[in-house]
């Protein structure tokens, strides 16, 4: 079975935020929550580089390891999902996540966080596939419909790739060979421990 991954080719990313907008719209993500974001390194200077980042669906995921109520699970395709019914909003997954993926609505007293929300690789949650309950809590389940994440499909320059890890690594490798240099495969060293040798 395919192992799903994201890969952002920062050589191509033009910081248009189409992926961010596509994600917000597809899943009707509430205000203040960003499942995907574009970070620009060295903004306005030589060597500027933009990278679209969301949950990387890590190997041996740190969020899963630290969750006090053990509410995460990993699908057969390597997608890291969680149950909002169990989450207590403690924020530990945000401290553990190398990519700042978990998001929390601000609710109630003090700085207390609501149920954690994060990128699902457009794969919904524990509820039955493509039900209204699933949509309300986790957004669309495109994987169950045989489609890939919308952010990558919407990417204007095809910088953001989503799908079978081997396939997207191959596409990226071909690009690197053609243009003669890589652009880092940002996050791969940390998420999949494979480095960016692809």
């Amino acid at each position, binding site marked *: 079975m395919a192992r799903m991954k994201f890969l952002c080719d920062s*050589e191509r990313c033009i*910081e248009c*935020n189409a992926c961010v907008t596509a994600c917000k719209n597809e899943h009707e993500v509430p205000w*203040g929550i*960003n499942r995907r*974001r*574009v*970070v*620009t*390194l*060295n*903004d306005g200077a*030589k*060597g*500027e*580089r933009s*990278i679209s*980042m969301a949950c990387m669906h890590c190997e041996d995921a*740190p969020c899963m*390891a*630290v*969750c*006090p*109520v*053990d*509410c995460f699970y990993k699908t057969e395709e390597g997608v890291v999902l969680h*149950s909002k*019914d*169990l*989450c*207590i*909003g*403690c*924020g*530990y997954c*945000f*401290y*553990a*996540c*190398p*990519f*700042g993926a978990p998001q929390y609505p601000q609710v109630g*007293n*003090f*700085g*207390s*966080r609501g149920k954690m929300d994060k990128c699902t690789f457009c794969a919904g949650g524990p509820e039955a596939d493509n039900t209204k309950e699933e949509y309300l809590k986790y957004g669309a389940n495109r994987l169950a419909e045989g489609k890939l994440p919308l952010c990558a499909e919407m990417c204007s320059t095809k910088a953001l790739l989503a799908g079978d890890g081997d396939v997207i690594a191959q596409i990226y490798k071909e690009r690197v060979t053609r243009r003669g*240099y*890589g*652009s*880092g*495969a*940002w*996050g*791969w*060293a*940390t998420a999949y421990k494979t*480095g*960016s040798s692809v």
Partner: protein
Amino acid sequence: MRLFHLKRTIWAVLALGVMIAFAAPQPAAAQQVPADEAALLQQLKGGPVTGRVSIPDVKSSVLIQPQGREWRETLEGPVKSFGGWLLLVTVVVLAAFLAIRGRIKIDSGPAGRTIERFNGTERFAHWLTAICFIVLGLSGLNLSFGRAVVLPIIGPEAFASLTTFGKLAHNFLSFPFVLGVLLMAILWIRHNLPNAIDITWIKQGGGLLQKGVHPPAGKFNAGQKVIFWFVVIGALTLAVSGYILMFPFYVTDIAGMQLAQLVHAVAGVVMVAIILAHIYIGSIGMEGAFDAMGSGKVDLNWAKEHHSLWVQEVRARGAGDD
């Protein structure tokens, strides 16, 4: 000299608080960004990769923070095994102590007459703190160990409800807890300053190990003074780190939050271990001790054996006797 050490400890704890509050974010790669994550991480010495975002969420400008994995390994590894072992060893040692030494009796038998040890205000401060502490301790330990211990027994749904409730209790009871500790500190600090008598008390092991040995002590003996300072400094550490956790990212960044969590988890378990010993000696461990905080009045012979100087002091004032 001892006082000086104490001050140093307090300063160290305060300095830690300030450090947590001002842990500055690592600057973004100033010069050229290498076209490689591994190379950049090396250039930043494993520090976070930070850039600019167009959304008003400052935290999200951190692209990669590899320390997340280190925090996870520290918490799941050394911190939790230390905590688990510490609690286990404490319980075993106390049980062994009870088995060997038995309940410490009033050697000269009860006098039948009592003397007032703690007044209403003192007992209020103590029990306010104690009740909050028990709930804070249980709900806290549930966060550390519940997933391994409680979840398999009661199942994920019940465990999530329990933990949500525990988290609410932990948040709200933190305020009366801090109030209780402040009250105790104000009421008792003058009785807890270290002095020369404490040295004799410690040399004789507080008389805990042998029957019939009763080193002199004032209102509080050296052992109780140690507990007092652990509670004051421990509560301060827990309050600083706890309020940082309760108001996430108000005063610090991700590194500060991770540090606060680790400090809180370790301090919490250490405090629970110390208070277990305190509860032991104040209840099943020693005859007559509970009355001090129960009715506030203790047996005169108990008082003479354990707090001889205090009894003299009270009598000199012409108070206390019933």
